[in-house]
């Protein structure tokens, strides 16, 4: 009996973190009428980061603020704004954080430079190895013996 009462209580539990009770913004869960514009909006929303829930895009998140951001994105797309223009508008407000599509900047350049450097390094190592292999027949024999 007691266990049943406890189980029953679980159905009436109040959420620990308070959230608003307003219905979501008009375009939070409503698609745009034009499928082409909606596709543009979704593509952009998937590369915008939710501010309240880390590591989710606003397309993924059910947090009210992510809904409000989707509303902004859809309204602006419908007004004919370019997706990159909307990204820039948000980045002006929240910095690089809000975008999942990093642009080259003073803080992000190593992201782009390090892979290029590693490829270059691998090519140099490879070139040296191949050149040495050609020059030195004794090493080649040694390798063959080992195999």
């Amino acid at each position, binding site marked *: 009996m007691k266990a049943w009462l406890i189980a029953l209580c679980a159905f009436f539990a109040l959420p620990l*973190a*308070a*959230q*608003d*009770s*307003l219905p979501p*913004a*008009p375009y939070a869960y409503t698609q745009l009428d034009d499928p082409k514009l909606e596709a543009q909006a979704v593509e952009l929303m998937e590369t915008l980061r939710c*501010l*309240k829930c*880390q590591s989710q895009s606003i397309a993924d998140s059910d947090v*009210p*603020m992510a809904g*409000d*951001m989707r*509303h*902004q994105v859809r309204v602006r797309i419908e007004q004919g704004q370019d997706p990159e223009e909307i990204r820039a508008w*948000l*980045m*002006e*407000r*929240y*910095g690089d*954080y*809000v975008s999942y599509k990093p642009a080259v900047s003073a803080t992000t350049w190593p992201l782009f430079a390090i892979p290029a450097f590693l490829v270059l390094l691998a090519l140099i190592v490879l070139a040296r190895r191949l050149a040495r292999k050609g020059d030195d027949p004794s090493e080649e024999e040694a390798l063959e013996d080992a195999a």
Partner: protein
Amino acid sequence: MNWKLWIPLALFAFFLGLAGYQLTQPKDEFIPSTMIGKSLPQFDLPPAMDGVEGTSFANFADGKPKLLNIWASWCLPCIAEAPHLESLKEQGAEIIGVAIRDRPEDVAEFLGTHGNPYTRIGMDDVSAIQIEIGSSGVPETFVIDGQGVIRYQHIGDVRANDVATLLAQLEEAQQ
């Protein structure tokens, strides 16, 4: 033994150490606004409940620096900051509130219980102003100078030791 053989292990140890160090650091979840030094947008919000006035850009561009408090009746830390907003008001700060995704009856109940430090309260149903000024949560408090330019952002609830900082920022925005 060739010392170069140790390079990969040293690199591995370095990254392991770096990851371990980062794990011990407290996670900074604040996303600061990058709108400091920029102007508030043109906006006009309706009153958040009967008996208060809504707010617009013009209220912030009248020459007197003010606090813009982003809050909501459903926000628990907003209860904690209520007495400190009251003390800011008593020390001469003018606070304009923007209630995020709220209902007039809830706003009235909150202010009835915790006091009303605001001269005006606007209602923002879709977080539009919040997004415009780069705020990412409730509560946040912005110092706005007399021309409507954002001068300072306080993220999270205002605590007793933040009151002096906010008053000093208001003073600075006056110049």
